[in-house]
C-alpha cells in the first residue's frame, strides 16, 4: 500500500551529524538562539520535575512510612516495609510470576516478530497490506483484548477451549484461566499477541536497512540463502535485538492492564505479578506504605535487568 514511500526512507536512517554542527554554529551561538532553546525546553523540564522526579521521590518517602489511608495516619517506619517484603513469600512469588510473564512474553514477541518481519520483507503483492493488518493487535485496547480472549477461552462456549479440547490439549469444558498451571501460559500467549507487532515492525525496518550490496557480494561468492541469513542478516539484527529486548522487557515487566484484566492475578495468585501486587496492596488493602515499597523494589528490579543486559552485551551497543 505505502511500501514505496516507506521503503525509500528506510535506507536513509537519520541525518548526518555535520548538518547539526553547522546549525548549532549558526543558531545557538547567539544568545537569542540559546534563549529560545531553553524556552522550548521549559515545558519538558516542568514535566520531568512535576510528573517524574516529584512522584518518584514521593514514592520513596511513602515507602518509609506506615500509611493507613483509611485512618489517615502515617508514621515513619524506616526500612521496615522492605525487610518485611523480603521475607514475604507472596512478594517472591509475585516477583517469580513477573519474571515468567516477562521472559515468556519477550521471548515469544521477539521470535514471532522476527519470523513475521522475515516473511514480510519481500516485494510480493499485498505485503504492505498484510503488514498494516498485522499491526492491529498492537492498538486494540487492553480491556477489549482481555475480554475477547476470555470469551474465546470460555469454559463452555469458548471457541479456543473447544478446539484445545478436541486436540486433547485441555479437558473439555474448562478454561485455562481457571487452571493454576495454564493461566500463566495462556496469559503470556495473549501478551505475545498484543506485543509481537512492535517487534515485527522494528525488525522489518532493520531488514530494510541492510544494504543490498552485501547480499549481492555474498551471492557472487556463491552463498546460499541460509548462509546469507546466517552471515549477513543475523549480524545486522544483533544491535536492534538488544534494544528490542530492553524495551519489550520493561514494557512487559511494567504492564499492568492486560494481565489484571485477564485474570485479576488469579486463580489462587497464580498470575499475580508485581504490578498486580502493588495494586492490590494499595487499593485493595489500603496499605500505601507497603505498596510504595513494593513498587520501589519493582523499579529496582527493572533497573537491575537493564544493567544485566548492558553488562552482557557491552554498554556501547545501547
Amino acid at each position, binding site marked *: 500500500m505505502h511500501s514505496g514511500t*516507506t521503503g525509500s*526512507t528506510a535506507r536513509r*536512517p*537519520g*541525518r548526518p551529524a555535520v*548538518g547539526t554542527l553547522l*546549525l*548549532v554554529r*549558526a543558531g*545557538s551561538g547567539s544568545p*537569542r*538562539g*540559546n534563549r*529560545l*532553546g*531553553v524556552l522550548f*525546553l521549559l515545558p*519538558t523540564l516542568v*514535566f520531568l520535575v512535576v*510528573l*517524574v522526579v516529584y512522584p*518518584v521521590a*514521593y514514592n520513596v518517602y*511513602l515507602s518509609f512510612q506506615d500509611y493507613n489511608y483509611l485512618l489517615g495516619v502515617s508514621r515513619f517506619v524506616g526500612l521496615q516495609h522492605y525487610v518485611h517484603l523480603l521475607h514475604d513469600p507472596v512478594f517472591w512469588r509475585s516477583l517469580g510470576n513477573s519474571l515468567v510473564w516477562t521472559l515468556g512474553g519477550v521471548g515469544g514477541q521477539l521470535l514471532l516478530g522476527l519470523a513475521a518481519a522475515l*516473511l514480510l520483507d519481500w516485494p510480493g503483492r499485498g505485503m504492505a497490506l*498484510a503488514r*498494516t*493488518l*498485522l*499491526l*492491529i493487535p498492537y*492498538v486494540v*485496547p*487492553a*480491556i*477489549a483484548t482481555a*475480554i*475477547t480472549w476470555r*470469551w*474465546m477461552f470460555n469454559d463452555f*462456549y469458548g*471457541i479456543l477451549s473447544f478446539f484445545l479440547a478436541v486436540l486433547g490439549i485441555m479437558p473439555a469444558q474448562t478454561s485455562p484461566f481457571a487452571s493454576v498451571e495454564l493461566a500463566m501460559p495462556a496469559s503470556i500467549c495473549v501478551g505475545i*499477541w498484543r506485543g509481537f507487532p512492535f517487534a515485527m*515492525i522494528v525488525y522489518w525496518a532493520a531488514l530494510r*536497512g541492510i544494504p543490498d550490496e552485501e547480499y549481492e557480494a555474498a551471492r557472487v561468492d556463491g552463498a546460499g540463502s541460509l548462509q546469507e541469513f546466517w552471515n549477513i542478516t543475523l549480524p545486522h539484527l544483533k544491535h536492534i535485538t538488544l*534494544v*528490542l529486548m530492553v*524495551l519489550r522487557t*520493561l514494557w512487559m515487566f*511494567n504492564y*499492568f*492492564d492486560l494481565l*489484571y484484566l485477564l485474570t485479576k492475578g488469579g486463580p489462587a495468585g497464580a498470575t499475580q505479578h*508485581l*504490578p498486580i501486587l*502493588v*495494586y492490590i496492596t494499595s487499593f485493595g488493602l489500603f496499605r500505601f506504605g507497603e505498596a510504595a515499597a513494593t*513498587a520501589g523494589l*519493582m523499579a529496582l528490579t527493572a533497573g537491575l535487568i537493564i544493567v544485566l543486559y548492558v553488562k552482557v552485551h557491552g554498554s556501547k551497543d*545501547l
Partner: protein
Amino acid sequence: MTSRSMIASTLHRLRLRPRVGLLVLRWIGVVALLVFALFPCYWMLVSSLRPQQELFTVPPRLLPGTLTIEWYEVVLRTTRMPRYFLNSAVISTASMIVSLVIATLGAYSLTRFRYPGQQVLLLSALTSYVLPPVLLLLPLYLTLGMLGLINSYAGVIVTHITFTAPFCLWLLRSFFKTIPLDLEEAAMVDGNGRLGAFVRIVLPLALPGILSTGLFGFILSWNEYLFASVLLTGEARKTVPIGIAEFIVQFDIRWGEVMAASSLATIPVVILFALIQRHFVRGLMAGAIKG
C-alpha cells in the same frame, strides 16, 4: 529437438520449483500470522453481532448465521456507555494536545540546540517512558486527592501525560532529525529569526509526523486502564475501559453486550491507527528506537 527442449524445460522447472515452494511456504506463513493476529478481532466482532441463541452454542460456530445489532442498541440505549465514550474522547484529546505541546517544543530544542546537561535530560526523558506506572500511582493519587482532582478530567489527563508526553518526545525527536537543516538555515539567512524558521519551515514539514505522533498518544490514553480505574470512581467521568470492565463485575458477564462495547471501543482506534501507521513506522525507522 523435443528431447532437448524437454530437458531444458525440466531443468527450468527444477530451478523454479524451490522458488515456487518457497513462495507457497511464505504465503502459508503470512496467512497463518494473519489468522493469529486477526481472528480475535473477527471473533469479537462476530460475537457482538450474534443473537443470544447463536452466541451460546456447543460447539461454537465459526461463521455467523443471523446477524443482529441488538447488543449495540442495548449498550447505547440502556447503559452509560455513550457518556463514557464522551469522557474518553475528552481525556484522550486533552492528553494528546498537552503532550504534543511539551514534546514538539522539547524535541525541537533537544535536536537543534546544545547546552550543558543535555545527555542527562535525554536520559531522564527516556527513563520517564519506561518507569513502572504503579510507581507513580500512589504519589499521583495522593497528590491529586489533595488538590481535589479525583473524579475530574484534569486528574486523569495529568496521569496520562506521564506516558504520552515521553512517548511523543521520543518519536518527535527522530522526526525532527530527518528534517534537512539547510532549509532552516536558508530561512534564517533570508532574515527569519530562529522562531520564524521554526514556525515557517520546521512545523509545516514536521506536521504529518507531529499529528500522527499525537494520534498515537491519543490511542495510548484511550486504552489506559490503571490510572483511570483508580481516579475515576464516580459515574460522571468514567472512561470506556472502566465502563467495560464494570460490565463484568456488575452482571454475570453478558457476553453480547460486552463484545458490542469492546467492538465500539476498538473500531475507532484501529481506524485511527490504519491512517497513521505509515508515519509511525517511518518514525521508528528514522531511529526513534535507537534513541
